[in-house]
């Protein structure tokens, strides 16, 4: 089994290509030409995430059809589209919860297509869920503790024998979790069960948890659903602060006003295909987008 595991990890290793066995070199990260808002450094693009020709079928129905997407470090990219446009499917495919039927996903130049979600998370690509997803019977503090799983890395035997290193580590992350809650979300009651918190607090907690794993790219699936205007503004502010701390963000959102206000760049999906891409002002004036949202004139 160990041998099998070794073989598997070797085959899925970042540099591995069958072609490389034959002595060929494959420069996957080489640029394909000038693109808007993209910086090129001599044959090497600084794309953080690249979705290449990704297609996903559900029983013959294409939920995603040859979608291309590039995300650059430090930006907030918005993904919008009418209901059923494939936004959430795209999220699930990128984060490993669904396998693409075709196409490739590169994160930091590394092929992550078909990896398990936890492996992708370990590489620094974290996500949130559309419906606020928490450990509902845990307290807020316990929620953040679990979210520290990636940096914590406990050994089974150290845990079992309750060694000094295990105890100090556990204490360190306990204090760190408290610190995080105090600085980012002081309004949340730490000891209350997560499902007893008000909706807005739950969503703040949901945003806080992936941050504990110190992501490079954070994908937010409709972070302001069910929020009133004040809460929405506060959430947007929070997201901006997260970006300013060095985390790149992809945002799926329904609410056009929030998307226009916060995003540097917007991608529009409709029926599983990308119909437009550009700055918020470009998108606002795009005829295809207006048609997709309001219906075309016959």
């Amino acid at each position, binding site marked *: 089994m160990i041998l099998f595991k070794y073989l598997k990890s070797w085959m899925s290793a970042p540099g591995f290509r069958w072609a490389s066995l034959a002595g060929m070199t494959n420069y996957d990260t080489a640029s394909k030409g000038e693109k808007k808002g993209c910086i090129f450094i001599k044959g090497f693009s600084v794309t953080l995430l690249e979705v290449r020709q990704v297609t996903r079928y559900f029983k013959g129905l294409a939920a995603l059809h040859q979608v291309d997407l590039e995300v650059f470090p430090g930006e907030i990219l918005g993904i919008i589209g009418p209901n059923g446009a494939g936004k959430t499917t795209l999220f699930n495919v990128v984060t490993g919860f669904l396998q693409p039927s075709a196409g490739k996903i590169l994160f930091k130049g590394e092929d992550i297509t078909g990896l398990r979600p936890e492996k992708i998370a370990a590489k620094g690509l974290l996500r949130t869920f559309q419906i606020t*997803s928490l*450990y509902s*019977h*845990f307290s807020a503090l*316990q929620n953040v503790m679990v979210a520290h799983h990636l940096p914590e890395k406990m050994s089974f035997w150290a*845990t079992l024998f309750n060694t000094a290193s295990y105890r100090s580590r556990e204490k360190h992350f306990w204090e760190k979790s408290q610190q995080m809650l105090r600085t980012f979300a002081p309004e949340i009651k730490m000891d209350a069960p997560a499902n007893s918190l008000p909706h807005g607090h739950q969503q703040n907690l949901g945003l806080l948890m992936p941050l504990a794993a110190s992501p490079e790219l954070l994908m937010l699936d409709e972070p302001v659903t069910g929020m009133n205007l004040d809460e929405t503004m506060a959430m947007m502010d929070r997201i901006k602060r997260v970006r300013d701390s060095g985390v790149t963000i992809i945002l799926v959102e329904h609410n056009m006003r929030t998307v226009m206000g916060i995003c540097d760049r917007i991608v529009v999906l409709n029926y599983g295909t990308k119909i437009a891409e550009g700055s918020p002002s470009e998108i606002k004036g795009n005829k295809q987008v207006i048609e997709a949202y309001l219906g075309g004139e016959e």
Partner: protein
Amino acid sequence: MSSISQGNWQKAFGLVLLGVLLIVFPVVVPDPSYVGMLVTCGIASILAMSWIMILRVGHLSLGQVAFLAVGAYSSAIAATRFGLSPWLGLILGGFITAVFALAIGYVVLRIRGLYFAIMTFAFAEVIRLGISNSKFMGGVEGISGIPEFSPIALPGLSIMKFDSAVACYYLMLLLVGGTALVLWRIDHSGLGRTCRAIAMNEDLSQSLGVPVFKYKLISFVVACFFAGVGGAFSAHYYRCLDPTSFTVTASVIVQIQATVGGAGAIVAGGILGATLITIVDHFLISIDPRLIILFMGGVILAVTFFLPEGVVSLPRVLRRGRLRVGNRFHN
């Protein structure tokens, strides 16, 4: 803060008192039938604890008794055919069961929800039928004449023989204590917290980078290891084995015991539930065996309605002063 430490003192005092009571029990009540009943409670407790351990990661095992069988048969065969010491058999039973669990878990733990229960159910039946049809393992007649634990010389005391229920009773206390200690330690550590988290929300755990499958496998293998040790102990205690004691009914009883005790607490719930049910069974069977079925049905109804968190939650419920029917719907 003071109230918390006071509570801890009370708990520690209670545990010590319980320990002393358990140790002097065979001296005060030398009746071998009562001591034997408690040994049965011990085996059931180990099994119930291991069942809850698997429930921790969100999986309902319908064939827990199969792992007891694997442990029991490996140790019994090793002792009767190859002359292995029962003491080594105890460890061997645990390890063979763990290897079995690793192989089975590697496949079935990828399956979520109800299908896992069906798979474990099927697996348990395969094991039982396999044993019944194998001459090597004694077939339907089973294995008899399994040697008892060989005597050991205790320092400062005389030589301890394991030909009586009392001696086995002390060994059983040690085994249950060891199992309880390890499982309690895991449950109250970061590992246990992550396991509970996985059961609560598997997708969220994956998205936070938790290797869900690995955690499930660890819990499964550890739980089954102890079930195997318990099985090996039971083989050398009863000194005979036959496949009829490893039917699905036995697995379901494990589930009832754990639920009645309270699946929210690995150690307290498992031991309490297994002990209570086994003792009541013991007395009912002398009146009329049919009463057991009636009792099982009644107790399940009563517990799910009035004590959805099991008997362990009884002190909390009493302190609150009233029963809340259907408390689980508030979750």
